[in-house]
């Protein structure tokens, strides 16, 4: 009835026989039940229900009508699919490129610097700001004739007199930059923890061999950071697929529907257009894409790790 599992230590193995035959105890499950009930009732059940609703026509008032794959077919035929999916993919690519890349850069430059904390501070402050807060700050920076327009005009760069949130794909790019402003700090922090855990020996050996600067980073530090980079990139992918707060507060997906991401389309279909079935379909598509991305990414990481190992 009771099996001694591996890794539970010798104490258990020694103690068990002295207790005699194990009794049936309802108590352990009783202790675990609040967690199980909360999670099943408020996370699993809605999840399953959303999956069901994605096959129905539902307005939130009348009972859902089973319509099979109609929502999915409709969604894939809809012109909005291309816009929202490509915007979402821009968010994913941009988030890997900018916040992760710059985070690594900031961590590498400030690591071991005497002024490290001070140098990192401007990057850390924005992370403590919520998505809505980021949208407020950048709404101010981006407003017509606002701070960014002034700077661009002053530097004679393009965009000085244009409204930066008015056209696709510039509006999505600009919002990715806004989100980068928030995200770099925490990635820098993660990479900093990684840098601090790198053993001194290989670095020292490489330095004695004459490596420094870029070469030291390229051939020693970067390979040693790989496992951590995998975690950071994986997190960035999953989080960026679900981009909602910044877009919703800044543009509500507009103008028109030009800056919608999948998460915004889902919210808009459901709570603005009152098409709960369609909204559920978008949520399912989003979840499936996130799932596939995670699996592909994990598989890629695992197979490439195998070739690096020695």
């Amino acid at each position: 009835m009771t099996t001694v599992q591996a890794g539970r230590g010798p104490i258990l193995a020694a103690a068990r026989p002295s207790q005699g035959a194990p009794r049936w105890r309802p108590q352990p499950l009783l202790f675990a039940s609040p967690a199980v009930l909360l999670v099943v009732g408020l996370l699993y059940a809605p999840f399953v229900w959303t999956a069901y609703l994605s096959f129905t026509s539902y307005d939130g008032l009348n009972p859902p009508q089973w319509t099979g794959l109609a929502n999915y077919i409709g969604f894939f035929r809809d012109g909005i699919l291309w816009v929202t999916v490509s915007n979402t993919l821009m968010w994913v690519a941009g988030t890997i490129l900018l916040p992760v890349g710059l985070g690594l850069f900031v961590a590498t430059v400030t690591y071991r610097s005497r002024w490290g904390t001070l140098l990192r501070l401007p990057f850390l402050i924005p992370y403590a700001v919520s998505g809505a807060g980021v949208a407020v700050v950048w709404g101010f920076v981006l407003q017509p004739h606002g701070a960014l327009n002034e700077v661009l005009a002053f530097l004679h760069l393009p965009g000085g007199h244009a409204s930066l949130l008015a056209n696709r794909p510039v509006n999505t790019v600009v919002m990715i930059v806004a989100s980068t402003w928030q995200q770099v700090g925490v990635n820098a922090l993660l990479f900093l923890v990684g840098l601090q855990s790198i053993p001194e020996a290989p670095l020292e050996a490489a330095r004695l061999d004459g490596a420094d600067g870029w070469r030291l980073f390229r051939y020693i530090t970067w390979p040693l950071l790989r496992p951590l980079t995998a975690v950071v990139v994986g997190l960035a992918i999953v989080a960026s697929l679900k981009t909602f707060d910044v877009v919703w507060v800044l543009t509500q997906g507009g103008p028109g529907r030009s800056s919608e991401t999948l998460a915004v389309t889902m919210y808009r279909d459901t709570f603005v257009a009152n098409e709960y079935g369609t909204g559920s379909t978008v949520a399912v598509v989003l979840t499936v894409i996130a799932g596939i991305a995670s699996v592909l990414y994990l598989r890629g990481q695992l197979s490439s790790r195998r070739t690096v190992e020695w």
Partner: protein
Amino acid sequence: MGRVVTRAIFAVLWLIWLAPVYLLVVNAFRSTDEYAHASIWSPPHHFGLWANFVAAYHSAGLGGSLYSTALYAVVAPAIAVVVGALAGYAIIALRLRHGFAWFVLVFGGSIFPIQMLVIPLFVGYAHLDLYDHRPGLILIYTAVSVPLAAFIMRNFFTGISYSIYEAAVMDGASSWRIFYRIYLPLATTACAAIFILEFTFIWNDLLFGLTLSQSDSVRPVMTALSSLLSLYAGTTYNIVLAAMLFLSLPTMALFLCTQRLFARGLSLGQIG
């Protein structure tokens, strides 16, 4: 040469990152009269921060919102910590049968995108009269906090020697008593970590607030803040910025004091 270029690039980035912070602070401090004509880059001449915040407070009904959010962000993580600790205790100390499977079930709750939850929650809450009521929001914030709490508590309890549990049983203590007199007090640091991470998540949440509440007194602060921005026709931006600055203070203070914790919490895939 390479080093000089690197430092120059870093210096430019540093300035770019600081610029929005600077603009936020100087314009949140600027009085509305001054905001109308002064350059947004100039430092403020009159201290208008408090007046701006009061204006935002009235136009978005921030009073009830602040109280509600403080309630959500304190009560929900507190319940989740205890619930998660109970689950971890059942699995590790009480040797719950198929404990690992139960653990996977509970922790697995953290992988669902919020988008997959809000429709049934909205409809269900409307039926159960939980929509736009504080207990409803506390309930969902607790539920989304439980997986991380169970994860951290289970890991923490694995590090407590089983002989402590056995000794307490020998002394005749009940399971419940061992939990709240021995295991929970030992885990104070783990509890604090969970609490801080979940407090921040709830304080910064927008989506649950948008979908499960609407009245000024129930909706969380970030939802109120975003409504302030769309009401912007009637409010000048210095007022919105002042509100945002105030509403960010609690999480900013927490984050800057406990940075490492956030890096660890994030690498569990929970926060963000």
